[in-house]
C-alpha cells in the first residue's frame, strides 16, 4: 500500500514540477494507464454484456473461446481487423474516419481528465464539469457528420435523428449538472466529489436529477431504449451501416468507451466518486461505474426502443420541466 502511494507521490511531483518534459512524461504515463483501464473495462463490459443478455434470454452466450467464452471478443476483434475495409463509392472516407476518431479521442480525453482519486487526476480544472459537457455535446454532431458522409440513406436518417436527439436531452442534462454545481458551489469535479463525501451522495440529495441524468446518459451514449440513431431493426445500423471491418471494430470499442465515460460520470457526479471505506479510491470509482454499466445492460435486454418523436416529447414535456424543478428545489432546500 505504502509503496503504491509513494509511486503516486513521485508521479505527482513530476506532474507539478514545472519542468515541461517531466510533466509531459507524467501525463503520458497517466494517459497510457487510463487507456489500459479503458481497454480492460471495454473488453470485460463487452463480454459481460454478451453473457448477461444471454442469461436473460435463456441462452448460453459465448462458451467456446477461452474459459466461459472470455476470449470470444478478442477472436471477433481479430476477425474484424483481418477483413477488407469496403468503402462505398459515394462515401467521404476522410469525414467518416474523422467522425469516429473525434468521438474516440473526445471520450478518451474526458476519461483522462476525470479524477480517479483525490491525488489521481492529470489536470484539476476549475471548470471541469463545463469542459466535460461541452465535449459531450459535440459528439452527436460527430455522429451527424459520420452519418451524412457515409453516403447511405439509412445513415442520413440516422444523422437527422442524431440532431433531434441532441435537442431533446441536452438541455435537461446541463440543467441537472448546473444543480450539481450549485450544490457543491463549484464546477470543479474534485469539489463535487468532496462535497458528496461531506453532505451525502447527490443521488440521494436530488433523486429527480439523478434519474434525469441517467436517462440523458443513456440517450447520449446510444444505449437502449434510446438507441434511436443506430436502431438495428429499423435503420440496420444507422450511421454505422457503411462502416466496415476495422472501423466497425473501432466503433464497437468507442461504444464501450463511451459507456465507461457515462458510468464514470454518473458515479462521480451522483454516487460519490472515489469516496468509500477501506478500499482505495480508484477501486471504489470503478466498482460504482461497473454497477451503473451492469444496470444499463439489464435495461438493454428488457425494454423496447423509443420512437424519435416520443423521445422529443419526453425531453421537452418531462425531462426539461423536471430538471428545472430539480434546480429550484435544490436551491430552496440546500442553498438558500
Amino acid at each position, binding site marked *: 500500500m505504502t509503496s503504491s502511494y509513494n509511486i503516486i507521490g513521485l508521479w505527482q511531483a513530476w506532474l507539478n514540477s514545472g519542468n515541461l518534459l517531466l510533466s509531459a512524461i507524467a501525463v503520458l504515463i497517466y494517459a497510457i494507464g487510463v487507456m489500459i483501464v479503458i481497454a480492460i473495462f471495454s473488453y470485460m463490459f463487452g463480454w459481460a454484456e454478451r453473457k448477461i443478455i444471454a442469461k436473460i*434470454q435463456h441462452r448460453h452466450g459465448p462458451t467456446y473461446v477461452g474459459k466461459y467464452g472470455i476470449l470470444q471478443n478478442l477472436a471477433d476483434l481479430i476477425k474484424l481487423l483481418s477483413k477488407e475495409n469496403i468503402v462505398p463509392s459515394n462515401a467521404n472516407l476522410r469525414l467518416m474516419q474523422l467522425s469516429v476518431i473525434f468521438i474516440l479521442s473526445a471520450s478518451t480525453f474526458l476519461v483522462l481528465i476525470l479524477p480517479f482519486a483525490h491525488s489521481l487526476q492529470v489536470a484539476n480544472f476549475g471548470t471541469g464539469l463545463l469542459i466535460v459537457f461541452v465535449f459531450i455535446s459535440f459528439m452527436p454532431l460527430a455522429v451527424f457528420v459520420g452519418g451524412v458522409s457515409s453516403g447511405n440513406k439509412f445513415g442520413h436518417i440516422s444523422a437527422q435523428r442524431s440532431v433531434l436527439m441532441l435537442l431533446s436531452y441536452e438541455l435537461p442534462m446541463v440543467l441537472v449538472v448546473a444543480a450539481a454545481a450549485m450544490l457543491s458551489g463549484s464546477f470543479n469535479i474534485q469539489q463535487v466529489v468532496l462535497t458528496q463525501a461531506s453532505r451525502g451522495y447527490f443521488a440521494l440529495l436530488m433523486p429527480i436529477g439523478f434519474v434525469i441524468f441517467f436517462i440523458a446518459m443513456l440517450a447520449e451514449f446510444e444505449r437502449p*431504449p434510446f438507441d434511436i440513431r443506430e436502431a*438495428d431493426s429499423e435503420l440496420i445500423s444507422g450511421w454505422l451501416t457503411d462502416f466496415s471491418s476495422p472501423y466497425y471494430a473501432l466503433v464497437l470499442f468507442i461504444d464501450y468507451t463511451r459507456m465507461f465515460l457515462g458510468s464514470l460520470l454518473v458515479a462521480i457526479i451522483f454516487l460519490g466518486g472515489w469516496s468509500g471505506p477501506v478500499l482505495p479510491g480508484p477501486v471504489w470509482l470503478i466498482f460504482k461505474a461497473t454497477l451503473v454499466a451492469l444496470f444499463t445492460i439489464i435495461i438493454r435486454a428488457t425494454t423496447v426502443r423509443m420512437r424519435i418523436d416520443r423521445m422529443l416529447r419526453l425531453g421537452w414535456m418531462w425531462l426539461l420541466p423536471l430538471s428545472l424543478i430539480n434546480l429550484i428545489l435544490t436551491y430552496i432546500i440546500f442553498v438558500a
Partner: protein
Amino acid sequence: MEFGIRNGKVMVIMVTRINIGPVHPSTHGVLRLVADIEGDTVENVEAHIGMLHRGVEKLVETRKYLQSHPYMEKLDYVSPLAYDETYVSAVEAALGVDVKERAQYVRVIELELQRVASHLLFLGTMCNDIGQMFTMFMWTFEDRDMVLRLLEQATGERMFYVNMRLGGVNLDLPKDFEENCIAFINREEKRIREYEHYLESNPVFMERMKGVGILNRDDAVELGVTGPVLRASGVQYDVRKNNPYYVYDRLNFEMQTEHKGDNFARYKVRMLEIKESLRLIKNALRMIPEGDAIGMPVKLILPAAKNREVMVRREVPRGELMMYMIADPQSPYRLSIRSPNFVNLSALEYVARGCKTADLFAILGSLDMVMGCVDK
C-alpha cells in the same frame, strides 16, 4: 428535392426514396419495400414481392394428388400443418372422402397447436421489430419449441409434418400425448400471462403499439384483410365460427376481436387467440373419442375424383386461406390459392402512409407476414 404546400406555405420538401430489404433485419424474409421518407415520416411505401416465387400452383398441376403435400407445407413455413390440411381437405372434397370422427379431433388439436406456435413466433418477431432485440424472441422460441416437440411426438416430424392423409391422419396421437399436452398447456397459460404483464406494463411498449397503424373497420373490409388483422379492426369474422369445419362447432371457444384496429389490437387479438386455442385443445382432448384415425393408404392412383370444382376455406393462423381446385381424375387441373398473407401485405401501403419510419417496421411486424406464402 421538390416543392409542395404545407400549412398554406410553399416549402421545399426533402423526400428520400429509400430501399428497404430484401436484406434487412425486419423484413421477415425477402420482402422489398420502397419507401418515400420525408424527414422521419413515411410519405408512401410500396411492397415489391416475388423474390420467393416458386410457382407452386403450376407445380401441383403436374403431380398426382398426394405428391403435393410437401409443396403446400413450404408455402407458410411457420404454420405448415395448416396448409397441408387445407390442401388435403380440398382433395377430400374432390374425391368425396369423409374424415373419420377421431381423425377430425386429431386434426383440430394439431391445427390449434400449430396456431399457438405461429402466434408465439409473431410475438417474438413483433418485439424484435420494435427494438427489444431478441429477449422476447428467445423466450417465445423456447415456448414454440415445446409445441414443436409435441407435434413431433404426434407426427414424427419437427417442422414439415406431412401428417395428413385422405380421410384421416398419418399417425394417431401417441399414448402419453394427452398428459404431455396438458402439462404444456398449464405451463404455457402461465407464461402467456407473464408476457402480457411484462409487455403491457412497459410504457414504452404501449407507446409504440397503441394508436399506431390504425386500420378502421370499413377499410379493413374494403382491403380484404383477413384473420387476426381483420378481427383487430372489430369485424366478427372467423372461419371456424362463421363456416365451421370438423368439430369446431361442437367445441366451446370464443371468437376474439378488438375494435381499435391499431398495432396493439393486432397484438392483443393474437395473445387472446393463443389463450383460446390452448383452452380449445384442452376441450378437444377431453372430448376426443376412441377409435381409428388413420386415413387411406398413400397411393399414387386414387379413386377418381367425383367433384369437378371444389373450394375449401380454412382459418389458418394468418387468416382465411382458400383453395379453389378444378379436379381432373388423378391430379388437379388447376389449383388456385388465396393466400391470407398476400392480402394482409397489400394493406401495408395503406396503413403505413404517414407514419414514422420506426412505425413502418412495427406495422409490418404486426401484420405478421410469411413471404413464402405471399410469393407462392
